[in-house]
């Protein structure tokens, strides 16, 4: 029974990383949001599996929250924003897809290199997932760097959050409940604020392309 769980957990973790790679590859905004939703769903299931195998009830709460919040509510908010602004659907990456994929691969290798000594010393069953979560965090950061649109930067940030949550899960079965709740609350507020800003930017600059945000320099 334990092996099934282990395989399930590792499988779900691999799914999350796969979703991150797909995010890097896609050229269209809508699909990016969709893939992000899938990634959060996989993450929620992973949390549930971990909860099931370790018997800690508070992880169930967190898993449910992840699924509800990140898989359903946030993608809808982003879709709403995009409909209201009628933003062009393409992502205009500053780095061509093949090279960004290669870079994402590089990120994974770096993450593994960094996490390798930690995995030996980690006692948790999901220690192996640490390298994957680090990779997801780095890829999220890469998405923010290489994409021009403001919304892609929001999604990049959220992907980094997912990576973080997975790292917490893999290392110490998540943080104490109050902290988790606080983190979720913060993410919600952050997304709301960014949404407000995206509206304002669109109203003043008539475009979401952040390359227009270049006026303040020395």
């Amino acid at each position: 029974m334990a092996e099934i769980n282990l395989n399930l957990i590792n499988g779900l973790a691999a799914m999350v990383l796969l979703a991150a790679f797909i995010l890097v590859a896609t050229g269209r905004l809508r699909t990016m949001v969709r893939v992000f939703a899938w990634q959060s769903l996989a993450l929620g299931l992973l949390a549930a599996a971990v909860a099931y195998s370790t018997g800690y009830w508070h992880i169930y709460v967190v898993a449910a929250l992840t699924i509800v919040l990140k898989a359903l509510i946030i993608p809808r908010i982003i879709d709403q924003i995009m409909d209201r602004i009628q933003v062009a659907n393409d992502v205009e990456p500053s780095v061509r897809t093949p090279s960004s994929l290669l870079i994402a691969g590089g990120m994974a290798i770096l993450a593994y290199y960094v996490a390798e000594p930690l995995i030996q010393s980690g006692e948790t069953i999901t220690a192996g997932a640490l390298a994957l979560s680090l990779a997801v965090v780095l890829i999220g950061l890469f998405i923010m760097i290489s994409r021009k649109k403001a919304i892609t930067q929001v999604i990049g940030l959220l992907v980094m959050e997912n990576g973080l949550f997975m790292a917490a899960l893999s290392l110490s079965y998540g943080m104490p409940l109050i902290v988790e709740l606080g983190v979720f609350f913060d993410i919600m507020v952050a997304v709301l604020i960014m949404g407000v800003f995206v509206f304002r930017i669109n109203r003043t600059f008539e475009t979401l392309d952040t390359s227009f945000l270049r006026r303040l320099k020395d």
Partner: protein
Amino acid sequence: MLELLLIIPAVTALICLLLKDRRQVEWASSIGSLALLALSTYTSYEVVTSGAKDEGMLYMDGLSAFMLMLVAIVSLATSLYSIGYMGRELDEGRFEASRFRYYYALLHGFIMTMVLVCLSDNLGIMWIAIEATTLASAFLVSFYNNENSLEAAWKYVIICSVGITLALLGTILLYASSIQQVGEAGGSLEWSSLLGMADQLDPTLLRISFILVLVGYGTKVGLAPMHTWLPDAHSQAPTPISALLSGVLLNCAMYAILRYHMISSAALGPGFSGGLLVLFGIFSMAIAAAFIILSRDFKRLLAYSSIEHMGVIALGFGIGGSLGIIGSLLQMINHALTKSALFFGAGQVYARVKTRTMEEIKGLSKTMPITSALWFAAFLAIVGCPPFGIFVSELVILMAGLQAGELLAVSIYLILLAIIFAAMLLHASRMIFGEPTKVVEKREGDIAVVMMLVVLLAGVLILGLYLPQGLNDMLEGIAHLFPGGGA
């Protein structure tokens, strides 16, 4: 009892939100910050005399008391100043009247988050508080709603949230290391208990977590490679907000790093984290020096000088030793006071001359003699001239550096200080002296601000010449908190 410290700013924010009339909002905000200052002086006096106070989620020792005082003093000065400043902005129609209330509500919300940072014992809560400061101040930075302030706010939010996410990862790693070592039950995020069991934590995990925290919170402090948001945010935000930002927010973020520095120096010895702090400190001073020479807008100049002073503080704490720590703490107070004085003066100058590019400003001493004299004195103070405190704190850090044998770092530190001294003074003397270019009638800035400048500068002057006994014991108490600092 500590919760009261949080409730006061929260309540003031709410009241400001509800009140409609401008006068009442102003009164509410000043009473609120006054009460905050009174209570924080009382509690920090208690902490200094009767030791740390641990109330569940909140924890207050010498260092947090010190930070609390800093937050309270600067927020009082800012709220008093913003009455005059925002009043004039309103009359000039720079923003709609309805948003006046939001300004004060956001201001006090911002103050509350900073107080929470200083008080929170749990590193998770501290992370949430810092995230909250970013969100609260994001609106304040974009208060003017024009392209530039929006761009500045957007960059501010994005960069800081990225930084803070990295810091969260660092916190998670730290939390994980505490669990592995001590088993499930012992795992806690209270840094006080973490400090207790620091030597059992796993060194490699701790090292990576400190790096992540340093890069993460370093973004909030404005250390060198992560400083890029700071000049934009400071130059676009309304003046009282940029005073609050550079006076206190940077110090709170530095406070967070210090907590981690304590834990990592207890576990790995001060060498590792101290060395990193020194490295980042020197790098930030170098970058700031380059930009101070080139900057053309005096608010950006002040922002870069904040980066430079944060570099000096990081250097001081990195060097460690009781002298290094006391020197950096002194540097924090002096910097907070002088920088707010500078920003208030900048607000006055901007109101009069209506331009921020320094080339166009000439002969201020003719157009507004007293304010420009005080502003020039603040400039002299910030670059470290003797009667003012920064000269003494920079000297103490130099002594600590020499004692710690960091000869290379100290010599670079001296050279950079000299370059910055020359560049800042050149900008200041060009603005103050000479014949006024714009034909502006000679009218003094309003009295309230002049008085505030005098009070702030008097504070820095006293710290330059004489250190009151009470403050001295507090500093020495804090120095003993640091594992390496006990010497």
